[in-house]
């Protein structure tokens, strides 16, 4: 809980569904300034007290004045989508100061590609050094050094319903973890800490491929044995890939790793899961893309993971197979057949 004498509001930047959830969580402990680029959204929040179908806590005040936020707040929670993340940080950089702290809640990568190229292009080659996690973007684009991230099995809808949940705040700085925890911890959100921010950030993104695969298994009508098989071998592939990218393993066994993976793979409502299920029903990627407004994060993750596995020489049979389903028209049934015949060898070989 925040100190009663602590008169500074906390900021949330980006009014998407997760940003809204975070703003409401923070509001239980004190005043919150909630940034949205869109004037209508700001008005709706301030007048109708609701956003994204969620009621807003009375402590939340919306604004689209970045300068006001930077002047009044020391602690900020950027929650923009990964696509617009760099742009937003860049636009606020002039207002940022060395005593600001940022704990981002965005599970995604920023990837520098040549102009005109997409991460889904088959001829694009990725090295681990091409991958920027959101904390690296903040460090690169602003003078803020005290960065952290919040990640874990935190499905926005469930938190909005006030179901209990736990999360991880990761930062190299004890100070950031302390500030973040006292700002957001409440009776409905348990907070754990981790110093390995890079691993926690990787875990939050790399799990998406497995969510897609889980959807495919669900779409084929398979049950919990198959799901457990996927989750356990999936975490193995994620760990191997992350290790090849220079991360440590430990964080992957925690909430942000296995915790988040279990939540995503067993939640049929997520966009990733839906794409997987549609693939299992025989729809092609092209068709799926043409009928949905947003590219599911998982499709990008599969492409990124596959490219990274190739450039680092990492063994990732599940990722390779989903890639073939998505981009090389392999049928889901055949893909599963291939994985069932694959010689895995020793069980927990990734520790």
């Amino acid at each position: 809980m925040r100190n009663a004498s602590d008169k500074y509001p906390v900021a949330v930047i980006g009014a998407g569904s997760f940003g809204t959830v975070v703003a409401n969580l923070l509001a239980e402990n004190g005043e919150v300034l909630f940034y949205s680029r869109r004037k209508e959204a700001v008005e709706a929040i301030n007048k109708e007290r609701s956003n994204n179908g969620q009621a807003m806590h009375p402590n939340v005040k919306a604004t689209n004045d970045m300068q006001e936020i930077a002047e009044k707040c020391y602690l900020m929670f950027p929650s923009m989508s990964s696509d617009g993340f760099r742009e937003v940080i860049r636009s606020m950089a002039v207002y940022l100061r060395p005593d600001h702290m940022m704990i981002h809640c965005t599970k995604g990568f920023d990837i520098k590609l040549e102009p005109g190229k997409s991460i889904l292009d088959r001829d694009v080659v990725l090295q681990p050094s091409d991958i920027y996690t959101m904390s690296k973007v903040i460090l690169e684009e602003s003078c803020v050094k005290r960065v952290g991230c919040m990640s874990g099995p935190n499905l926005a809808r469930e938190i909005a319903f006030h179901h209990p949940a736990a999360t991880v705040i990761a930062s190299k700085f004890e100070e950031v973890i302390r500030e973040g925890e006292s700002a957001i911890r409440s009776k409905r959100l348990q907070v754990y800490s981790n110093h390995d921010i890079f691993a926690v950030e990787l875990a939050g993104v790399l799990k998406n491929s497995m969510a897609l695969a889980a959807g495919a298994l669900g779409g084929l009508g398979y049950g919990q044995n198959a799901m457990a098989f996927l989750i356990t071998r999936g975490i193995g592939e994620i760990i191997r890939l992350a290790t090849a990218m220079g991360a440590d393993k430990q964080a992957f066994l925690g909430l942000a790793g296995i915790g988040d993976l279990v939540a995503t793979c067993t939640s049929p409502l997520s966009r990733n899961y839906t794409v997987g299920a549609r693939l299992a029903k025989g729809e092609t990627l092209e068709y799926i893309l043409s009928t949905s407004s947003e590219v599911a994060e998982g499709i990008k993750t599969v492409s990124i993971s596959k490219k990274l596995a190739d450039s680092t020489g990492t063994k990732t049979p599940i990722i390779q197979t989903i890639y073939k389903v998505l981009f090389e028209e392999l049928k889901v049934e055949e893909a599963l057949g291939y994985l069932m015949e694959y010689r895995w060898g020793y069980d927990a070989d990734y520790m």
Partner: protein
Amino acid sequence: MLESVIPRIQDWPINRIAKKRDKILQETISETVLEFNKSYPTLFSLREQLQKTLYLENIRLKTEPWEVDPEDEREFWNGIKKRLLQADPAQIDEDASKELHQEMLQDIISRYANEIIGNFIPNMFWFARQALRLFFARLFNAHFGGLKGLFNPDEKLKDKLIVAGPVEKLRNLSTKGTVILVPTHFSNLDSVIIGFGMDYIGLPAFQYGAGLNLFNSKFFSFFMGNLGAYKLDRRKKNPVYLETLKSFSKTNILAGAHTIFFPGGTRSRAGNIEDDIKLGLLGTVMAAQRIHYEKNPSNLAPKIFIVPLTISYHFVLEASSLIEEQLKRTGKEQYLVNEGAPTTVKGIIKFFWETFSKSTDITLSLSEPMDVFGNALDDDGNSLDKFGQPVHIRNYFANKGQLKEDDQREMIYTQMLGEKIVEGFFKNNVVYASHVVTFVAFELLKKKLDYPDIFTLLRTSDEDREINWDEYKMCVKRVIDELYVLNNKEQIKLAPHMTTKELDEIIALGINNVCIYHANLPIMRNKEGNITSEDLKVLYYYHNRLKGYGLEKCIG
């Protein structure tokens, strides 16, 4: 030769500090006592640390005695042993025991601080500078001869010892704050050469830590001890010594001493550019900057400037013994030891002779100066962000506007500074022909022989060491092309000879330059015109210089 930014040696910061020697000593001691008690606040933990220190010092006395050690060393530590027994809190009153432990702590720290602290005598500096200039000038004259060389030695020196990078800015900043020079470390001669180079561009003398082993020689000891060197003893790894060293460093930086830190801690054993920065002493720089802000209003607080420096040699004096040590350390039983030759005066003279009399040179490549957070600086030393806007770095030490000491936070900041320094090393590494020719030769051999480990490779017999000339030349070309790409991206620098000469000339120059110094040729062309090596270990050493740039992909 540039005019000195502070004309009178007497006015140099290092001399002002030398005049306050006793004050610095007292401050170091009281600061160490304070910090040590902060880390070990209970009688139990303090006693444990003192016992550990005694234990480690006894081992050192038995296994590694040096000539430079004072005669009463054994006596002193026997005394501590007795006093520890007498102060046993199980036997006597706790308050009395506490007091006795504090006295012991104070005595040990005082002994260490007195050993570490150096001195500076302006006249001695003047004398050493003249002697060194004369020595270098003689070397040129020996080669170039003629009246021109005799009367104009600086002209030649400029071509031999090149100080590249933002020289003017550094000169400017040296009068506005405290400069911490952080060089790569390849050779024992680094400090002499850097000292000479900085004097050459008109900077006042720097303080630097010299290994206590160098003080074994009375001659060196006399000179260095009075030229601003303080003493570092790598044998002493006990907690009290390390804390004393840190406090000493912090006290001096706070007093405004321009300092040279070798952030890798020791000479690079493998010949690579350091990427592992020792955070201990660098942390004292961070703490000093915070204390400046605690003691002064933000706009008046003295600033500390960090300047990474990459040294490029064609050949390294101790190449052979360094790589032996490295292999011994990493290889364990896989590696059969040959004792490397120790550095001798003859070796040093030969090194300078070859460097200055032949067509070869040394580059000291300065990185852009930065504050302790890696921000760029304007000419007045104000910190600028990447948009060129002022940044008030005081607030990095603040929480909600209040300055607050936070060791864990400063440790992370120091790590970040370390990363910035390494970035500077790599970006401003000046590539010489000799680096390229050795890199390609070793990588080609590695690829061709495809052994599972480096040790098997180093034992390869003579006939397997041959590399086809055409293949070699093609790979050199590819590596140079890639170096151009990196150079355009400002990720590396190229020596002028790399850009002005033809491929064949570059290869010949590189091979000749590595070979003029070593008795067993690390790289050579055989009768058939192919590339081979008489000393794979030394070849491996030189090749490591270009590790970390991803150039391996150009091979084969």
